[in-house]
């Protein structure tokens, strides 16, 4: 472990990569064990090439570890299935509401806020341009002067934009979390 031989490290990193289906912490322990074995066997007088040959190809060694890991999964398969199915059903149900709501907020609000900024500026310069009588696009505050209207309007637009971005980020977190939970429920 003290001196790191490039050839040994290459073998070990290929080995680590082949263990991909095991949890990270376990992979570390397993790689340490094999690294130690290589050091011990070389201390005992073996050449690195001999030691690695006796260990066999890195991916085959990794497969042997993964086969043992599968064998020691005590839980029967049916209950794993049911667990994963339950988690999936829960997520599908919540996704039915969460994804459309967050998606609409996340996409529409930033877009609306940009339009709002343009409308407020236009309204400030040409007060009559956006006044359609029954409805208006720019911010309208009864009795306020144009400068106050512009400042408040722009502030509201920025706020809407932030809410939109927040919703979009939440959506991303939600999706990432769903995938992770599903994967954990399965393995």
């Amino acid at each position, binding site marked *: 472990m003290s001196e790191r031989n490039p050839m040994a490290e290459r073998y070990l990193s290929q080995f680590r990569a082949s263990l991909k289906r095991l949890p990270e912490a376990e992979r570390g322990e397993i790689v340490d*064990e094999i690294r*130690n074995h290589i*050091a*011990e066997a070389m201390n*005992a007088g073996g050449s690195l090439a001999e030691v690695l040959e006796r*260990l066999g190809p890195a991916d085959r060694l990794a497969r042997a570890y993964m086969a043992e890991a599968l064998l020691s999964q005590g839980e029967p398969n049916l209950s794993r299935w049911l667990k994963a199915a339950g988690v999936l059903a829960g997520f599908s149900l919540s996704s039915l509401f969460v994804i459309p709501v967050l998606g609409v907020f996340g996409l529409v609000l930033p877009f609306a806020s940009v339009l709002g900024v343009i409308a407020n500026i236009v309204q400030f310069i040409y007060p009559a341009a956006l006044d359609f009588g029954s409805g208006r696009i720019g911010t309208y505050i009864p009795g306020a002067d144009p400068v106050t209207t512009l400042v408040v309007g722009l502030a509201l637009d920025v706020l809407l934009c932030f809410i939109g971005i927040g919703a979009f980020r939440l959506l991303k977190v939600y999706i990432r979390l769903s995938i992770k939970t599903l994967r954990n429920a399965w393995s």
Partner: protein
Amino acid sequence: MDEWNSQLRRGVLQLGILALIEAEQRYGYDIVTLLEKTPQLAAGEGTIYPLLRRLKKDGWVDTFWRESAAGPPRQYYRLTEEGRVVLSSMRSEWTQLVAAVNGLIGGGSADHV
């Protein structure tokens, strides 16, 4: 035949490893070299280390690191209480099985079947 052989060896190897660390805590390389002295088991590193991992996962052995005078720290294996119980029942199971099968296939000690 190959499949039967490897299944049989795997079970026997488990018993062998547990017995090796019963009296004394041992590190991986030590276990590998000791098992080499029983070539009939045909147990190489590629079989022994994954099996050690499995025994640990089952809670029959646990591990700890200890400094070594010769080089890097070593990971030692020792039997847990559960491992001791398992080993003693495996042992009597094995003895009975060998006697019975020897009788069945007409080997050495058939008298007491």
